[in-house]
């Protein structure tokens, strides 16, 4: 009888655990699912409160089509966002792999000074130096260019990604390098052929963080991009939502938000392991 009671308690516990888990999951996922479902309503229906969230007067992609009718069109902003994010990923990976390797494997003057300098920028909020960044970009002729925005985003990624890459290179045993050097590999072939395959997980992690950072950044893009043809998605969608293009089309807002969210969600689901890894590395440091 005692056994049956303890089994009952166990079942009760499991039941309570899963119902808590399911309710909490629904609460966290509902706003996302609600939005994505609502985007497939015809424009007329999208103006009404989303009750129920799914389309009731027929499936339609009208909301996505109208996105292109605001200003320069959403497609231009999407292209800008893609360009900025991809370039940020490529450049920050390139710069931090080189720097991580340099910091990990060489002893040169001021090494520790430079490392601390780069890492300490994480203590300074970039929000407080936006005005001079604006002036520096103007001076360099990069004012109101996507390239200028990329430079800023890459710099913001550096403390985290260089920290990650240095740790990754530090974890590679030196014997591997010495063996390769015996075989006549020089520094560059060593880095590309021998080291890179070994630090690959770190590279994926910093690439993922760079993409999400650049894709989602709002304030710097809002301040630095003054020309509508250079707007990234968050800036463009905020302009749309503020009624800058006439009455607010909530169906278009939902569709735009979906376009902004989906790449992040897919990348996270596909690369979750690397994301958590990056978080842990940041948390454990």
């Amino acid at each position, binding site marked *: 009888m005692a056994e049956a009671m303890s089994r009952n308690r166990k079942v009760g516990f499991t039941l309570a655990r899963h119902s808590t888990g399911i309710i909490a999951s629904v609460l966290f996922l509902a706003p996302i699912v609600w939005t994505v479902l609502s985007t497939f309503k015809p424009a007329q229906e999208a103006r009404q409160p989303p009750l129920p969230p799914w389309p009731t007067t027929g499936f339609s992609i009208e909301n996505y089509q109208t996105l292109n009718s605001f200003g320069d069109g959403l497609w231009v902003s999407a292209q800008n966002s893609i360009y900025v994010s991809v370039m940020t990923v490529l450049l920050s990976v390139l710069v931090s792999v080189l720097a991580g*390797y340099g910091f990990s494997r*060489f002893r040169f003057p001021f090494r520790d000074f*430079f490392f601390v300098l*780069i890492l300490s920028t994480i203590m300074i909020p970039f929000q407080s130096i936006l005005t*001079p*960044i604006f002036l520096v970009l103007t001076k360099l002729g990069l004012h109101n260019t996507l390239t200028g925005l990329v430079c800023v985003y890459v710099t913001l990624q*550096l403390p985290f990604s260089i920290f990650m890459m240095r740790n990754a290179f530090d974890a590679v045993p030196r014997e591997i390098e010495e063996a390769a050097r015996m075989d006549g590999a020089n520094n560059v072939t060593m880095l590309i052929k021998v080291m890179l395959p070994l630090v690959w997980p770190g590279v994926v992690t910093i690439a993922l963080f760079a993409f999400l950072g650049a894709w989602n950044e709002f304030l710097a893009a809002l301040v630095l991009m003054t020309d509508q043809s250079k707007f990234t998605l968050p800036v463009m969608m905020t302009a749309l939502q503020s009624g800058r293009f006439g009455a607010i089309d909530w169906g278009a807002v939902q569709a735009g938000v979906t376009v902004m969210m989906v790449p992040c969600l897919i990348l996270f689901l596909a690369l979750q392991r690397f994301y958590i890894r990056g978080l842990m590395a940041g948390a454990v440091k």
Partner: protein
Amino acid sequence: MTAIAASAPARSRSSASLRQWVGLLYVLPAVALVTVFFVIPLGMTAWMSLHNWPLMGEHSFIGLDNYFAILRDTRFWNALKFTFYYTVIVTIAIFAVAFPLAIFIERPRPLTNLYRTAFFMPAVVGFASASLLWSWLLNVDSGLFSPAAYDLGLIAKKVNLLATFQPAFWSIIAMVVWKVAGFTMIILMTGLQSIPQDLQEAAVIDGAGPLARFRAITLPLMRRTLALALILSVAGSILAFDQFYIILRGGPRNQTLTAVYWIFNQSFVSFKLGYGAALSMVLLAILVALSLVQLWLLRKPAGLD
């Protein structure tokens, strides 16, 4: 003979140290970027804060006048006060949700990974996307909350949640908790998982209840993780901008202007770049002070390991 023997190591030493210099080339791009886009702008902020610096036309040196002006700028102090108020409330709210979630997903059980992923999903969505999404959900005519409450008969007529301070403020808190709790949960989870299981079991054998175990083992051993999660939440909240700009535009009646929002307004709406720089220096001092507190809190506990 001896000369040759002596010179060989010397030469190899100098060529070895030369080879070390190559490292400088590897880190050069990173150092250049940080210098041009961080160190120089930082110096410029300090420099500009001592000037009257309009967007167009000449700037002039005015010493500490901008800082004296800040002392009299009641709207900035109100913004700062609101920012701190928001920071305290939102941090408490985030922890109140994230800590139970972290305990819930700490140990691997069936479906735990699925739950963890679900709780974490909003954290990978950007603040701007989340704000746009919630500005729709909170809209009085086309949104969800008010019409749903009306349809269910909970309220007599639709209420515009964003029209008055209290509902607008708590709507933002709800949105931020929804977006950030999963992130804080993961940080706290790493802390929980680092506590040795046998310590908990030994305490159980000693007859310690769950609450006693939580206070005597979990909290002290999680100190560094807690401090980290706390600092991340506090620093993030002090710099809050996106949600207040996108959902509320600083309203109703400018009551939700945050510090960064006020700096943004002064610098890029009124184009008082020098004054904006001085305000930035104040914000920067607050954040650096916070970072120092962080280093102190995260120090390795004395006497332990």
